[in-house]
């Protein structure tokens, strides 16, 4: 299990070797990208701020849960911090497994949990000059219930 926060461009090929395992029949990855619009507004850039000590701890918990729930061989995740441009990679998750189904399931579980539980905040900057801290309104309650 591997988790890292980085303020540099994420290069998935650097992390892919962490998943290699002679017993693995394949690997699934997810890349989250910065897109150019959100809820009708044109986004020009965004900023991720993290609480590193707590994010590292909570990410290890999420990856452990994925590992415990699905028969996978290895799992790794990297999340960006700092200012990102449109199209940049914000998060990368890779999972290797003996069979593909559990790799897909573990990858989806990890991104879903990470979005509601990791102490990382996103500020979007819009073309009209405004900026806004973005979150989903039900995340706090969902996060509180899922980490009990």
């Amino acid at each position: 299990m591997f988790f890292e926060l980085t303020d540099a461009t994420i290069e998935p090929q650097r992390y892919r070797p962490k998943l290699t395992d002679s017993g693995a029949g394949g690997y699934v990855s997810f890349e989250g990208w910065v897109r150019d619009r959100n809820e009708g507004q044109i986004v020009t850039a965004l900023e991720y701020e993290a609480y590193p000590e707590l994010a590292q701890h909570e990410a290890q918990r999420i990856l452990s849960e994925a590992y415990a729930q699905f028969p996978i061989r290895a799992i790794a995740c990297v999340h960006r911090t700092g200012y990102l441009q449109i199209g940049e990679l914000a998060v990368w998750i890779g999972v290797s497994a003996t069979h593909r189904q559990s790799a897909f399931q573990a990858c989806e579980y990890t991104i879903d949990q990470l979005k509601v539980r990791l102490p990382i905040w996103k500020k979007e900057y819009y073309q009209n000059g405004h900026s806004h801290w973005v979150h989903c309104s039900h995340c706090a309650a969902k996060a509180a219930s899922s980490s009990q």
Partner: protein
Amino acid sequence: MTESRPLTIKYFAQLREVRGLSSEDRQSTAATPADLYAELQNQYGFSLPQERLRVAINDRFAEWSDGLQAHDTVAFIPPVGGG
């Protein structure tokens, strides 16, 4: 008389912007994170209600009713937006 404790408070995202600081040391008589947030809200005008936040003590998620100890580091976690 209620005992006053030295605490460190970490601020993130919109709370950091409103406070204008990433962290500060503070003496407080607050017994729990809930008391402490009410005290800070009163002083700095944080508009996020406690129900929208989570709390961490010493870099681990904690409960609002947990007891605060001298030299604890407390962080209030606004709604997250990673991924």
